[in-house]
């Protein structure tokens, strides 16, 4: 997925001189996860450069650049460190178009690795997507494969509105289905691990059905898509799995169509449960599909605690927990 993201940036920087990228350690070094590797060499230090350790400052700079007419892509080194920039994102980038009646806009993309599963402890593991989904004016995108990552990042950069682009770092180097005790699989063996060369886009706002089924609908995104697939496979339950890809605005039609078909719904995310994005999904599903629902909608999520270092796998909502929820909802 790293190469796919790198390729998306490469493609867009080649196509559009108004695209530039910066962030902590992204210039000469190419980013702590190497997503911007080679870009400074290829496009020069004024198009791919290091920023001071100032998340608020670099997002603010991006907003100013966006107001000028550029399309900056900034990296926040870990999603856990996005909070210093929260005011600039929420009060400024998100509202600029609306508050200025279109005089100024924020065509900026904020990329950041998120999620756990790497023994990163509580400040290298967080999943803050719900905080951004609550903010009118932001779009929130989360890919689950290299193929999607590239197409979605290109679409995000082309967006005229600010996009929070969350990259599930646990699957940077290969799909991960939650079986941490099994050998690591590389993307090269995964069908969506292959990335077409050059430019292509995956429109924002469209979910993908990654597995068809009729017994229950699973709503997932990021790493959890792979976990859900494993859970379906292992439980033998005929689950239909939707990869939301864009968290907000979400693909409501795809969700409603699937849940109306299956009558049951399990929502999976890694973030803490309370007021997580799963709550919104549950609310939407019951609003739109109430009369089709045959069991309570279940949420499988991270627990409402900080991400605890040594309890990584007790915390991570792995296939066993998803499988149990599938069974519960089917019994429901």
């Amino acid at each position, binding site marked *: 997925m790293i190469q796919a993201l790198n390729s998306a940036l490469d493609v867009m920087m080649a196509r559009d001189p108004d695209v530039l990228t910066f962030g902590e350690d992204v210039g000469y070094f190419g980013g702590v996860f190497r997503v911007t590797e080679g870009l400074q060499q290829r496009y020069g230090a*004024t198009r791919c450069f290091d*920023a001071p350790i100032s998340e608020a*400052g670099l997002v603010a700079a991006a907003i100013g650049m966006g107001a*000028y007419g550029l399309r900056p892509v900034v990296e926040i080194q870990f999603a856990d460190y996005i909070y210093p920039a929260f005011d600039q994102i929420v009060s400024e980038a998100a509202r600029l178009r609306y508050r*200025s009646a279109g005089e100024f806009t924020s065509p900026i993309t904020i990329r950041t690795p998120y999620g756990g599963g790497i023994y990163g402890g509580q400040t290298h593991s967080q999943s803050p997507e719900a905080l951004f989904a609550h903010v009118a004016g932001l779009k929130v995108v989360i890919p689950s494969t290299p193929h999607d990552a590239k197409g979605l990042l290109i679409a995000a950069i082309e967006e*005229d*509105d600010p996009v929070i682009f969350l990259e599930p770092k646990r699957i940077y180097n290969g799909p991960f289905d939650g079986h941490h005790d099994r050998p690591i699989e590389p993307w090269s063996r995964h069908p969506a691990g292959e990335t077409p060369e050059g430019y292509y886009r995956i429109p924002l706002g469209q979910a993908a059905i990654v597995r068809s089924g009729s017994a229950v609908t699973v709503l997932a995104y990021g790493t959890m898509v792979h976990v859900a697939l494993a859970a379906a496979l292992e439980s033998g339950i005929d689950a239909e799995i939707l990869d939301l890809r864009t968290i907000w605005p979400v693909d409501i039609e795809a969700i409603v169509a699937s849940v109306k078909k299956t009558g049951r719904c399990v929502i999976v995310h890694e973030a803490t449960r309370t007021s997580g994005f799963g709550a919104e999904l549950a609310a939407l599903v019951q609003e739109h599909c109430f009369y089709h629902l045959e069991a309570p909608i279940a949420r499988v999520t991270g627990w409402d605690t900080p991400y605890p270092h040594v309890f990584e796998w007790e915390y991570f909502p792995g296939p066993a927990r998803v499988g149990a929820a599938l069974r519960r909802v089917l019994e429901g």
Partner: protein
Amino acid sequence: MRFATDPFGRKSNLPAAHRRNSKPLSLRVPAPKFRPGDTPDFSGLNLSAPGAAARPEIDAPAASMRALAFDLIRVLDANGQAVGPWDPRLDVETLKRGLKAMQLTRAYDDRMFRAQRQGKTSFYMKCTGEEAVAVAQTLALHADDMTFPTYRQQGILITRDYPLVDMMNQIYSNAKDPMLGRQLPVMYATREYGFFSISGNLATQFSQAVGWAMASAYKGDDRICAAWIGDGSTAEGDFHHALNFASVYRAPVLLNIVNNQWAISSFAGLSAGDGETFAARAIGYGLPALRVDGNDFLAVYAATHWAAERARANLGATVIELFTYRAEGHSTSDDPSKYRPKDEAQAWPLGDPIARLAQHLMALGTWSPADQAALEKACEVQVRTAQKQAEANGVLGSGQRPSPASMFEGVYKEQPWHILRQRQESGV
């Protein structure tokens, strides 16, 4: 290697020779010199004499001009004469243009303040006593240089001839409000006039401006950018980010600190630190700092022009502290007599920017009290005329306002499904 025990019976690893009884600590909470009931007395204020501050070349290294962060650049002397190296030697036409823009700004403020009191709008903020800041600075910039203002730089729009009627339409949130009724009064925005959307969240524009300037430099453009921030707002992190980014990337930006000595009820000592100037903040970032009498039109013009030339020459950012005084309340919601002496504004030794520029023109022999009276009258008429036009488009509460459906537009470029449904649900 065990801890020793100190005189308080606590373990201590400080060698005995250096251990000391310490007196109990105490918390210092600073307060302004004068509160309601006190007689304001600014005689202790350390002001440089007019003409005294040195004027370095624009390409002098920042480290060579640290003294300017503690001096005060002044051009107009007590007799209205322009003195010293910072005299910008402006032609009379420009001086009169400045005077007129300041006067118009004041007239506009007065009318809009009154309109709020008449219930025609919810809120208003004046810049009385600080008109030289926005007006002289705008005149010293190119018309297409970008500005990132606070709510107290309405003078920029007025100097750039943005229509008064449109400003008022915004204040009234009426049918022709360029902000479509979405914004609190005074939160103007106009790309055409190079005036960035004012934010209700203090200080955020300061670091954004640096990004704009970086973009201009990145594109090989020749437009520079100026940003403003209040003394109180410098306490926000964005201030620090702005100075750091401006310094690191040598951004062509003017970072203006409008020190009007008050932030609502809080005095500048809460953000300036221990008796230091705001301009001194620049030193730690290797940026040049100019500290300017903000009520001296010529000094403000000259400092701004110097900094703009420096930015245009790719030499980077300058921090300018504009030392002034907020002569009226913070906003229509404020009552300053609750926290400062009523007559403090009158006691302010650096006077009123309009009166001082008029005095200068008179000293030059090209202006008279009658001219000044005529100008005041003309500005008032101009504002009244605009006001009539604007009120024909409605005032707050009149029902003449943008279509309620427009409230659901512009959250995103295209309206997503959920907002569309919410509009339908709302029935508008």
